[in-house]
């Protein structure tokens, strides 16, 4: 059980912090002109009021991958362009998994799956938006990410599973750059490798009110011959929230540490 079904009010203030969500009014900028155009003012005020009642859809909310994937593929469906060195490591892991040895995968013992893998797993993700930072809460074992929105560069002191993420709004799109990712993690359940020098770019954009698309760009010259891109869409789980999940308790009860597939309904109350 990873999601709380209880709906709890609106997300008005969350939406208010995103540029696209702010209702715009020409009359705020030119009150004198607005006064001269009384009828236009009335009409515009009505539109303005309507906009306030129905703000633009937000990426804030709870989402579930539309097609959770064991193995990441490029946007054209191909295996990522591994270098010889990357291919050797990947083959080794694929063979180990086939033989039943998943110990290269930290998530199999409930350590953090890392990025971008946690974005592909069949667990809900809840996005909480503040002006200064954005949090992405995973329904998998309490993992969460914090994206700094200050616009400043943050130094990487040592690599971690979620790395150092900084974000910026480009219109309604959220662009997140992440560095400092620990090479102990894998990109996907299949075992795609990465180095500590990998740069990950994610672009979050709503396709419609209930569909979120995230495009991932991986740059890691040691293991990949060129930058490559992958994409995942998510469907909104309206009125639901990520709940506490303890992986160690789940594996104690015989459940897998990480599911490879499944509908969110299987993990909701």
């Amino acid at each position: 059980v990873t999601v709380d079904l209880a709906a709890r009010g609106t997300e008005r203030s969350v939406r208010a912090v995103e540029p696209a969500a702010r209702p715009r009014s020409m009359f705020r900028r030119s009150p004198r002109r607005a006064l001269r155009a009384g009828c236009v003012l009335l009409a515009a005020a009505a539109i303005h009021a309507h906009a306030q009642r129905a703000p633009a859809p937000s990426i804030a909310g709870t989402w579930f991958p539309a097609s959770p994937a064991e193995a990441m593929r490029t946007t054209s469906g191909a295996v990522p362009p591994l270098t010889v060195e990357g291919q050797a490591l990947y083959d080794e892991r694929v063979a180990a998994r086939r033989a039943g040895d998943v110990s290269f995968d930290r998530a199999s013992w409930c350590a953090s799956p890392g990025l971008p893998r946690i974005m592909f797993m069949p667990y809900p993700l809840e996005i909480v938006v503040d002006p200064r930072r954005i949090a992405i809460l995973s329904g998998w074992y309490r993992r969460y990410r914090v994206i700094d929105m200050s616009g400043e560069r943050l130094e990487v002191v040592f690599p971690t599973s979620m790395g150092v993420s900084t974000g910026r709004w480009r219109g309604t799109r959220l662009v997140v750059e992440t560095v400092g990712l620990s090479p102990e993690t894998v990109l996907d359940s299949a075992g795609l490798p990465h180095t500590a020098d990998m740069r990950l770019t994610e672009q979050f954009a709503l396709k419609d009110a209930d569909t979120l698309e995230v495009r991932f760009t991986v740059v890691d010259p040691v293991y990949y011959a060129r930058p490559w891109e992958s994409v995942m869409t998510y469907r909104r789980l309206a009125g639901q929230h990520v709940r506490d999940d303890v992986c160690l308790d789940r594996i104690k009860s015989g459940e897998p540490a990480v599911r490879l597939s499944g509908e969110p309904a299987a993990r909701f109350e």
Partner: protein
Amino acid sequence: MSRAPAHRACTRRLAVAATVGLLCCGTSALRPTAVNAQPTQAQPTQAQPPRAQSAQPESTIPRGPHEDPSLDARDFRGIWQALPMRTKRAFRLDDPPLTPIADALVRSYEALGRAGRIVASARTTCRAGAVNATLIPFDTVTILQNDEALTVLFASPNLVRRLWLDAAHPENLEPSYTGHSVARWEGDTLVVDTIGTNGIAEIDAGGAGIPSSTGLHMVERITKSADGRELDLDITITDPVVLSAPLKLMRRWQWASGERWVEEDCAENPRFDTAATEFFPRELFRPICKRVAGQGDATSRVVCEGAGNESR
């Protein structure tokens, strides 16, 4: 105090690890700096923490951008750092009013500790609860806030609390480590009511910590200082099974501009060198994973039999 169980591979600032080391037995991923370890000795009483010191020693701890606190008394957003708990024993509460059954349990664990056993706890086996995380956070506390809820991100222990504003507890509440928290404003004080904890996580954070029951009830009254730089938490905990009287505590979280959230990655880290001395108050705490020592250049691995990762 007993040594702590050997079940955590954790990343966190070593400044904290200096005091947390006894709790965190991970061997490979501690954060690499220990320059501003928080003192644990000769501290004032737990009833009222002192004002924060302003001196900032040099460090290689990851730093965040400067950030000014909001002066809005009802805006708790930002990054906070709890002042150290001032108690006689690290991570333990002083003289809690325990019921006879809880007192006997705690004393038995302490006796095991004195005999050299390592007493595992929910917190030291990566199952922290909302209560001990709130009372004894080791690292930053990041708060996001909107009309619906406050989202409280504890870096260490790795835990998320949601404080649902102007909401009611569900009727059929499924017990969990974090329980269910609802919050409302009384003037400029946020009153948080938490029930629904699962009785597994301890109230404090020692290896022989104060247990809890599913009847635990925590009320926090959180008030921001006029300069926006401190949150004072006035906490009352009742538990009909464990506590013979309400447990009243004060905590203070300090505005932490320049600090930055850094993850803790807590997972079983079974170590052969401590296995023989460990004691597990609950079978749940006993690890099912084994550490396989690497040979030659190979690194050690952790293998979880029955973890059943679906990837094959």
